[in-house]
């Protein structure tokens, strides 16, 4: 996994709440057996609309998505995270994320920065006044920044310590767990014999 420390990039204001994972990538796009190429399906239903924010040339280089509350609710499909990453997004800012989506993002290396909805609102306003403007995210200090001078927006964001550490280090969860192999084996030795097996 690619470590994440800081990132500055074009931010895309997505003024919608409750963007579920079916909106991020509809089920018909989930049939691939590889991890790449899912950008085609990203926000598929909205991409036909020429006024949809991702279709505007100013946002062509977008790498930070700024979305309304409850982003990534619904289905567990990690393809939603891959679609965002395959498209070029490194981070999503929202005031509330679907649990499974947030977990998936951490594992796959997409930063989910949770800020107050008021901050989202200010960033939206800022970006809409200056389409193509950048936002900076610093995971070390857990801060997001946009604009400068008197209008500058700077606030801290929430992310749990463990995910932050993993993202900063670019660590693979499985390697960490395999390091505790002896604990797993001793747990297994103590499991009741009546627990079901599938084979």
């Amino acid at each position: 996994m690619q470590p994440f420390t800081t990132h500055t990039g074009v931010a895309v204001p997505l003024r919608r709440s409750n963007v579920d994972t079916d909106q991020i990538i509809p089920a018909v796009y989930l049939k691939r057996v590889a991890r790449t190429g899912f950008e085609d399906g990203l926000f598929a239903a909205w991409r036909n609309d020429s006024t949809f924010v991702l279709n505007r040339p100013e946002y062509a280089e977008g790498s930070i998505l700024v979305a309304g509350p409850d982003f990534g609710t619904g289905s567990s499909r990690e393809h939603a995270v891959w679609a965002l990453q395959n498209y070029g997004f490194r981070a999503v800012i929202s005031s509330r994320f679907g649990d499974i989506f947030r977990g998936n993002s951490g594992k796959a290396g997409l930063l989910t920065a949770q800020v107050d909805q008021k901050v989202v609102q200010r960033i939206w306003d800022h970006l809409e006044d200056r389409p193509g403007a950048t936002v900076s995210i610093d995971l070390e200090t857990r801060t997001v920044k946009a604009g400068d001078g008197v209008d500058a927006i700077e606030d801290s964001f929430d992310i749990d310590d463990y995910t932050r550490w993993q993202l900063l280090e670019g660590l693979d969860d499985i390697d960490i767990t395999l390091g505790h192999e002896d604990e797993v084996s001793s747990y297994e030795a103590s499991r009741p014999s009546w627990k079901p097996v599938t084979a």
Partner: protein
Amino acid sequence: MGKTLSEKVWDEHVVRQAAGEPDLLYVDLHLVHEVTSPQAFEGLRLAGRPVRRPDLTVATEDHNVPTIDWDKPIADPVSRTQVETLRSNAAEFGVPLHQLGDADQGIVHIIGPQLGLTQPGMTIVCGDSHTSTHGAFGAIAFGIGTSQVEHVLATQTLPQAKPKTMAVTVEGELPDGVTAKDLVLTLIAHTGTGGGQGYIVEYRGEAIRNLSMEARMTICNMSIEWGAKAGLIAPDEKTFAYIEGRTHAPKGEDWDAAVAHWRTLVSDDDARFDKEIVLDASTMTPFVTWGTNPGQGVPLAASVPAPSDFEDADDATAAEKALEYMGLQAGTPMREIKVDTVFVGSCTNGRIEDLRAAAAVVEGRHVADGTRLLVVPGSARVRLQAEDEGLDVIFKEAGAEWRGAGCSMCLGMNPDQLEPGERSASTSNRNFEGRQGKGGRTHLVSPLVAAATAIRGTLSSPADL
């Protein structure tokens, strides 16, 4: 201080606990299907890792499979590749697989309980958000992403931060004709789609205790629709009776030991929940959705709301967008909404009891002109049982289409999809934009409302017939 049910189950599965780290939980059962597993198996292959416990893992084909001509090769080449990839991965890694044509093939959340693999006090995961279904047995069961699927395949464990606990107590008795589906839709309309976020929820109270196991599964299934991490119900005699004798149920002395342990799986009287909600079942009525998330619902007897009915500005905007997408006018009585397709099936309502309920309504009647009724059993075994009971004949005589088992129109990954603008009444769990086919419009309903709607052609309950 005592412990809640979910705390007891959680604590029994902690392999490792360390400050600043999530708990490392042992996974008792890992369910696998074709859509969210290929990249996980690929990851194992690249790293040269085996599946640690194939004997605690089981796979099935459900999301993609056709429900007609399922005995022939899958026509859609991309779906076929995905199913074939699962078959070769299962063979390579030694994972038991119930494939198309096998009596135990079916929707992953239907076959776990059906095989007796789902038992109280277990931890169960699957790359599918409706894994919460298995909570009906007093298990902690939740959906995971593909990276986590790979993690469980490789280690049989999962690092997880301990969620908060919530009790949803449903007092009183459900009136006749009001089902578990109505109850859970009412709950979600009450809490909103984010109301359960960060919690493991225990459903309890008289109304929950009175529900059958199948109805309890309907409730737990939809826990994720209000954002809960998982939902569970304390096991009782009904739970034990449901499990006893099934293929993977404990036998003989093992059964006695298991039941003795299962009886301890209740929240202690002095346990504290982080949050509590109390609802009264006796005031509930058939409930249907009008919008594009499961929280946008009203009683069937009500009318389509107006955006101005919502105090919260975001809710009002969401309502406006939903009404536009759904092609609905505020103020239209729900009962006057004309439906093109009725879908009975899914892991929410595709079990035998659901099919019986729907069949009882359509028996001796005929599906309305201009409406189609699609009945898709949740598993091959449910289909066989329904055919044994003659339910297929009742459905076919009423003009319904009787299909093979799978997810089907719940998410439209196979050919069973709505056309743009087409409206459905569906016993599934998600009315998201485009969920059942691009541009399709979904109303979530109970099996009873689905069946009555098929007969009248507009949203209805059996009482309207």
